[in-house]
């Protein structure tokens, strides 16, 4: 299970980014390796169509199978669904990403 969260900076002090494809960083939780990696979003400053590029980057390159977000743009949603990516939509955007990454790693 490889889970992606959009976050503000590349470390544990980050907050959740409200916009997935425009998020400056992503936290990638690899449950198999029991590890959290922070990667900068190479497409966050694209003028248009950041969503499809971000999905390809996260799914093809980073092998993500789950996206966690407060809200997803329709292009990201469509591409994620086409690729059988699980989408988890949070009720609250103020939840700390660290709390979520810890919860994912602790879950059996």
């Amino acid at each position: 299970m490889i889970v992606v969260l959009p976050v503000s900076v590349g470390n544990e002090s980050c907050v959740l980014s409200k916009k997935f494809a425009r998020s400056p960083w992503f936290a990638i939780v690899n449950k198999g390796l029991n590890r959290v990696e922070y990667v900068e979003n190479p497409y966050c400053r694209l003028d248009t169509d950041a969503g499809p590029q971000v999905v390809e980057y996260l799914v093809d390159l980073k092998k993500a199978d789950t996206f966690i977000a407060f809200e997803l743009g329709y292009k990201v949603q469509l591409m994620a669904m086409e690729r059988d990516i699980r989408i988890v939509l949070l009720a609250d955007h103020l939840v700390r990403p660290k709390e979520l990454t810890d919860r994912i790693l602790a879950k059996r």
Partner: protein
Amino acid sequence: MARPRHANSVQIPPRIKGFTPVGYCNGECEPLLLYLEELEVIRLLDYEGLSQEEAARLMQRSRSSVTRIYQRARATIAKALVEGVEVKIESGNGFLNCNWFFCSGCKVRFNNPKGNVTNECVLCGSTEIVKMEGCV
């Protein structure tokens, strides 16, 4: 349950059940109903900035149907705002285009893209999950 004849594909279930006016609430009026497909049109056109053609393609309906749904949605929202009437979101002719679940434990909504049996929340592991037919 059989899908209604004029069903409209909706991508994700809304996070809310409705809206209540602040400061004054017109209690003489029954709450106004905003249907799932009306909220979806507002989301696609006004929130996402799509054209009506693009929205029609996503919702698997004709452009003229989308125009009619949009007009109804705007009229409902206008009445609610101007007259201070509560709005309730109901399923109507909207259907979710894949299986969605709601976790009563951590309140997340999650889909089940591969259609396998889901009996626990993917985030908190709670078994208190319900399949969503429309609203939370």
